[in-house]
């Protein structure tokens, strides 16, 4: 019977240590530097330029027709244009970034033997959950920083910031965390299966490709199984882009369920692994 208070306390310690890895180690400082540079270019060019263009009535009309056709009309109704461009970019880009940055949850430590020191003091369950929580904590911080920068950009362009923009930024932040959770949990599983972060990334990409290929083949011969595609990670993203405000959370159930499934699989793999 697991000791739940100890499990929770170890998960918190492990998650905080992952955050410390970002802000307290040279490797983390380099990652933060790279993050700042990438976001400078994203904010300065695509987000700022697109936000300016979106103020033109003819561009709005054209995009309204295009987005209306693909069910994304709501993207034009955000309180500030910067947030709608930010949302469009991040919801499609960040899952890939999460796959790349959260690949080393346990693989490196297992190959180095560091997990042997850890498992003398904490359970494998706490390691899986704590490392996952740590990755989510890091992502939450980085997404929050980029959102604050986006709001600052909007403030600078408009001279003031509508309160609705702050509310929408909070909704975007929570939504992005929900979007990223299954991809981060998938990397917890891949990281538990192999012995390096590169292999974990390869496994995630190849595994996803093979899964989609197999499902497509199955659906080609048995079209009744088309519904299976709705359960793949990220399947809710097109629907999510078509919504706005608190209504977006109606699509949160699937990614949260996928996160649970991936974490249970990662725990099972980790439990049976030789260290």
């Amino acid at each position, binding site marked *: 019977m697991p000791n739940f208070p100890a499990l929770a306390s170890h998960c918190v310690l492990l998650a905080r240590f992952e955050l410390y890895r970002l802000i*307290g*180690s040279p490797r983390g400082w380099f990652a933060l530097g790279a993050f700042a540079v990438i976001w400078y270019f994203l904010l300065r060019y695509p987000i700022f330029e697109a936000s300016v263009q979106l103020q033109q009535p003819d561009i709005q009309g054209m995009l309204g027709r295009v987005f209306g056709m693909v069910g994304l009309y709501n993207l034009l109704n955000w309180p500030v244009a910067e947030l709608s461009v930010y949302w469009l970019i991040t919801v499609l880009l960040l899952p890939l970034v999460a796959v790349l940055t959260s690949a080393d949850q346990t693989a490196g430590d297992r190959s*180095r033997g560091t997990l042997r020191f850890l498992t003398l003091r904490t359970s494998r369950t706490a390691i899986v959950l704590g490392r996952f929580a740590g990755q989510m904590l890091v992502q939450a911080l980085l997404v929050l920083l980029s959102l604050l920068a986006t709001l600052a950009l909007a403030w600078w362009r408009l001279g003031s910031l509508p309160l609705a923009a702050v509310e929408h930024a909070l909704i975007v932040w929570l939504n992005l965390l929900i979007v990223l959770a299954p991809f981060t949990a998938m990397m917890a599983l891949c990281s538990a299966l192999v012995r390096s972060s590169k292999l974990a990334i390869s496994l995630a990409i190849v595994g996803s490709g093979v899964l989609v290929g197999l499902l497509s083949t199955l659906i080609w011969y048995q079209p009744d199984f088309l519904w299976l595609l709705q359960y793949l990670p990220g399947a809710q993203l097109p629907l999510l882009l078509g919504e706005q405000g608190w209504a977006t959370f109606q699509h949160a159930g699937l990614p949260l369920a996928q996160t649970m499934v991936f974490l249970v699989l990662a725990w099972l793999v980790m439990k049976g692994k*030789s260290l």
Partner: protein
Amino acid sequence: MTHLIQAKALCKKFGQKTVLDHLDFSLEAGEPIALIGPNGAGKTTLFSLLCGYLSPSSGQIEILGHKPGSDSLFGRVSALPQDAQLDPNFSVQTQLEFYGRLQGMNKNTAKAETARVLALVDLAENGQQKATALSHGMRKRVAIAQALLGQPELVMLDEPTAGLDPVNAMQVRKLIAQLSGEATFVISSHNIFELERLCGTVLYLENGRLQQQQPSYQQGAAGYLALQLEQGDSHKVLALLAQLAGVQKVEQLQKNEYGLFYDRELCPDMDLTVLAMLRTEGLAYRQLTQGRSLEQQLFSVVNG
């Protein structure tokens, strides 16, 4: 009564290869315990099972009445695993403090405890360095330091002096001897002489089987003396030793080294008799040792 370690019909297989074959033993807390065996005997596999890094293929193993790796053993059992390395991204001190926090210490206690264990392995000045900046021997000592954090009841050390220079190896042996009253040490090593000095009980593994479990010191009426001379005609020395009253058998171990079997109850002062004979014959000796070495005890039984 709860044993420190108890194994029942313990087996471990990797594929078709049986690495540990039906081990049955129980060990009690107290003096350090040696785990000895040739390369490939299964020592590290047994260590990994004890630490919970591996699961047995069959049979049972318990430490302090619990399955290895269970929550109840966190902080009570520690280990120096072979070839395990600290995270290269953080300083030694940061990681040891983190391990202390996981063991339930608060921030200040973890800091003080880290300073204590680093001082024990003579690395008090190196806490701020990363593991990658340390030499192999220093990394080994840091790994020993992490095993001493807190108050573990059982400390398992896999090859603790392998790769250390003689001075540091001696320091580690001293440290184990010094701390052996506070925790029970289980030490795996190829260095039989090191284990002989440190350990009270010996587990001898060979081909995955437990060949012997015995105290490392001599028991019973069978007496034995090992004699090392400066020089001397071996035929003459063997004859002189054989004619001493109470001597049952004499053997030549190496050049200028001899072994005497005698009845300890009949001749309790055989050492004095031998020394008197050496003085009479004008033979200079280098060493006279009571009892058979651990190496002689193990291999005379194992190899006949």
